[in-house]
Structures are given as structure tokens and as C-alpha cells.
């Protein structure tokens, strides 16, 4: 535990000072700010931000995360040569990566709301869900980044698979589901589609928002199925649990590989 917090302390300093994280925060801040200046209403800004959060946050998390772990490779070896355990070092490295990105997201999106938003009904719920979705996606995709960068010694391979995974989740997955639906349209597909949705963190983030906005039925097949199947509150808990699992599973795998790896 002490090792973890000590590593974390310095990693936080290091990542928080990196130019990429600064640019990321500024981008989110300016975007949210501009949406307020043009769109006005807080609830509409949340909706406009939805797709940015769903696509951009995972991309930045997985790409920056992978590159960061690779760039820290030599220093990680030096740290491993110190009298510290691999388990606590791993925890420090992951938190040192995920927490600054989570903080950047929270500040970039949250601060403009604090500046501009007027208290209105139906704003805080969706906003809280948007922030929750963004934070969970950050943790999921930084965990994936850790796993890839530890698994592959070849940087090109690691970064390539990071981008492929993002592309798969963000773009290809929905297309695949649509294809499936049209191919098997004569069969009852609710359950399979539901199961498939639970596997894709970006879809889960979307569903989480849609359940909150009570427009689930209007927003595509998976959302409608979800609402029908679970009802709003059970659905929300299911989605949150699935996202947490999707962060924990790659993280546990990465930790396992890290503990046994030959550096």
C-alpha cells in the first residue's frame, strides 16, 4: 500500500504535467464552453456532449495510455530493481495513469457547467450520468491500454491493437449488430442483442445515458430493448456493473501478466 501511494504521488506529478493531458483538458473545456455559448440550455449541452464523451474519451484513454506505458518502460524496470513488490508497483502505475485522465475529463467537462449552467430541473441527473459514463470509460480504456502495453513488447503492435480495439468498439460493433439483426430478422433477437451490448463499453455508456434521458425508446434498438427488458433502474445498475467489470477484468489480466513478465 505504501509503495502504491509513493509511486502514485510521482506518477501523478508526471502525467498531470504532460502536454497531452493539458491539451485534452483544454479541448473538453473549450468544447463544453462553446456548446453553452451557442446552445444555451444545460440539458441540451449534455446531449451534445454525449457522442464526444462516448468516442473521444475512450480514444484518448487507450492511445495515450498505451503510449505512456511504453514510454515508462525503462523507468519501470528501474523501479522494479528497487526493493518494491510488483503488485503494489502495478497498482501505482495504473492509478498514476487513470486518475489524471479522469481528473482531466472531470475538470474539462465539469467546470464549464459550474460556470454557465443555471439550476434547472432535469439537468443534474443527466449531467451526473454523463460524468459517470466518462469516468468509467476512462478507467475501462486505460485498463485496456495497460494490458496491451504490458502484453506486447513491440510498440507498433501494442498501439495498433489499441486503435483497433477502439475502432471496434466505437464503429464496427454497432454495424456488426445491425448486420446480425438484418440477417436473422425472423428470429427473436432481444436477448442476443442485449448480451452483445453488455460486451461493448461504448454501447454501455450510450445506454446508460439514454436510460437517464428517458428517450431510450427513440434512440435505437439496443436502448429500446434495454428499457423494455430491465426497466430504468435495474437497467442502470446492470449497465454500471457491466462497465465496472469491464474495467476490472483487463486490469486483473494486466496485473497477472505484469507480475510474471520477464522485463
Amino acid at each position, binding site marked *: 500500500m505504501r509503495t502504491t501511494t509513493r509511486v502514485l504521488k510521482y506518477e501523478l506529478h508526471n502525467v498531470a504535467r504532460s502536454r497531452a493531458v493539458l491539451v485534452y483538458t483544454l479541448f473538453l473545456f473549450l468544447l463544453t464552453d462553446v456548446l453553452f455559448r451557442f446552445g444555451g440550455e444545460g440539458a441540451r449541452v449534455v446531449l451534445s456532449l454525449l457522442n464526444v464523451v462516448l468516442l473521444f474519451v475512450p480514444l484518448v484513454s487507450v492511445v495515450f495510455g498505451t503510449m505512456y506505458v511504453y514510454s515508462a518502460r525503462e523507468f519501470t524496470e528501474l523501479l522494479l530493481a528497487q526493493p518494491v513488490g510488483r503488485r503494489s508497483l502495478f497498482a501505482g502505475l495504473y492509478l498514476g495513469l487513470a486518475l489524471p485522465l479522469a481528473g482531466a475529463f472531470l475538470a474539462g467537462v465539469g467546470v464549464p457547467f459550474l460556470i454557465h449552467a443555471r439550476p434547472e430541473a432535469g439537468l443534474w441527473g443527466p449531467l451526473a450520468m454523463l460524468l459517470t459514463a466518462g469516468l468509467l470509460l476512462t478507467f475501462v480504456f486505460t485498463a485496456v491500454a495497460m494490458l496491451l502495453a504490458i502484453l506486447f513488447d513491440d510498440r507498433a503492435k501494442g498501439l495498433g491493437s489499441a486503435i483497433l480495439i477502439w475502432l471496434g468498439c466505437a464503429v464496427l460493433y454497432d454495424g456488426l449488430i445491425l448486420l446480425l439483426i438484418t440477417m436473422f430478422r425472423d428470429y427473436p433477437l432481444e436477448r442476443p442483442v442485449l448480451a452483445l451490448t453488455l460486451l461493448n463499453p461504448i454501447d454501455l455508456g450510450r445506454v446508460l445515458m439514454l436510460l437517464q434521458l428517458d428517450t431510450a425508446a427513440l434512440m435505437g434498438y439496443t436502448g429500446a430493448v434495454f428499457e423494455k427488458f430491465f426497466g430504468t433502474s435495474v437497467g442502470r445498475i446492470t449497465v454500471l456493473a457491466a462497465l465496472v467489470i469491464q474495467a476490472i477484468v483487463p486490469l486483473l489480466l494486466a496485473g497477472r501478466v505484469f507480475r510474471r513478465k*520477464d522485463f
Partner: protein
Amino acid sequence: MTAVASAAPAVEFRALRKRFGRLTALDGVDIRVAAGRVTALVGPNGAGKSTLIKCLLGLVRPDEGSILLGGTPIGTEWAYRSALGYMPQAPRFPDNLTGREVVEMLRDLRGGIAPADVELLDWFGESGALERPVRVLSGGTRQKLNAAIAFLFRPGLLILDEPTAGLDPVASGILKDKIRRVRDAGATVLLSSHLMAELEELAEDLVFLVEGKVRYAGPLSGLKERTGESGLERAMAVLLRRGGA
């Protein structure tokens, strides 16, 4: 004289074997590195020098065999590494931290043992390098930081991988003097280098690895006697040509 905190341990590698897929990096290595002496680790590229060092550091897990530090197997516990000081080849430090912060971090990780040996740290910090982010430092300055960290905790065993690489002649001289001084104070030094002149200057013992096997292990003078060559470079060339010793 520089005091050494932990008693200088001898290192013993026993029947150490490591394969990476089809490549055999270490093929039954048996060596004893004597306490309080400088041992040079040499061999052609890919001979297994790095793998041997990394096994000792716990970075690589050997498939078979054991490593004894001061008579105790190192096992999988990490506590033994508090006796080690490591200078990796081509180090990279977190870009956005200053030299001071990197040093503080390692000191924190070690539980802040006092009193540290700051001689090389002062040398590194002479021109204000301690306060600058590591990414703006030149390769040689970074190597000084690397050295300063390795010596900082008064380790009983120093593992130096190409320690003078990238250093100018003056800096390289200062580092070599430092190595000699900690050796005189009782530390064990395991040194890997491609500079034969440097090894002849510093090392008392020599381990010559070829393709994961020990071709020669013993005093430097013994190697020269065996091959009838006076220069280290020629002596090793003779050993390489002869094949199995």
C-alpha cells in the same frame, strides 16, 4: 573513504537456465562473484549478459537454477533488492519530473534510508540539473543521474550496465574513481562493458559469456596466462576462436 551500509555480499549463480521461446539466453551458468571485488561481465552481443543481470535484479525469472546473495537464495521476495544498486543501460526517466523529484521518488520507495551517499548527486546537480525536467537533459547528464541514483543508497552490491556510455572522458574518470572507492570500502561490483581498456583498469575478475555459457570465469590475470596474450581484447579473441574452454 565511502562507507557501505549493507555488508558486501558475494553472488552465486547456480546452474542458471533461461529460454526465451526458441532462444537459449542462459545455458547452465555457474559463477561465483567474489565479495568486495570488481567483476567484469563480458561477451559478444546476445551472449546473455543482460539476461544474467536481469535475473539477479528479479526482472527476469530464470527457468532453472538459483541465485544466492551472501549465501541466501533470492527467491521471489523483493526485500533483498535493498542491498542492490543498479545502473541500467540507456535509462529513461519520467519526462516531466525534475532530477530532484526522480531522486526523491526513489528515496521514498526505499523508505528514505539515511544517510545517503550524495557525492555523485552533487556532481550531477552542479550546473542546476537537479531542478530541470529530465527530458531537457542531455544523454550524458542523464547518465550522471543514473549513476547518482545507483550509488545513492550505499548498496553492498553494485550492478553497472555500461556505466560510462555517453559520458565525456572527465565524467567517465570521475565515475571510475567512484567505483574504485566503493570497492575499496568493501562493496561488490558487477560491471558490464564493451570498453576493454576500462575493464582492464577497473576489474579484478572476469566472466566471459558466449551463447549463454561461461567460457571463462576467474581473475583477469589468469585469462592472460591461459591465452598467452597480454591485451584483454586479444585474449578474448583467442578464447572465442578456441571454442569450448
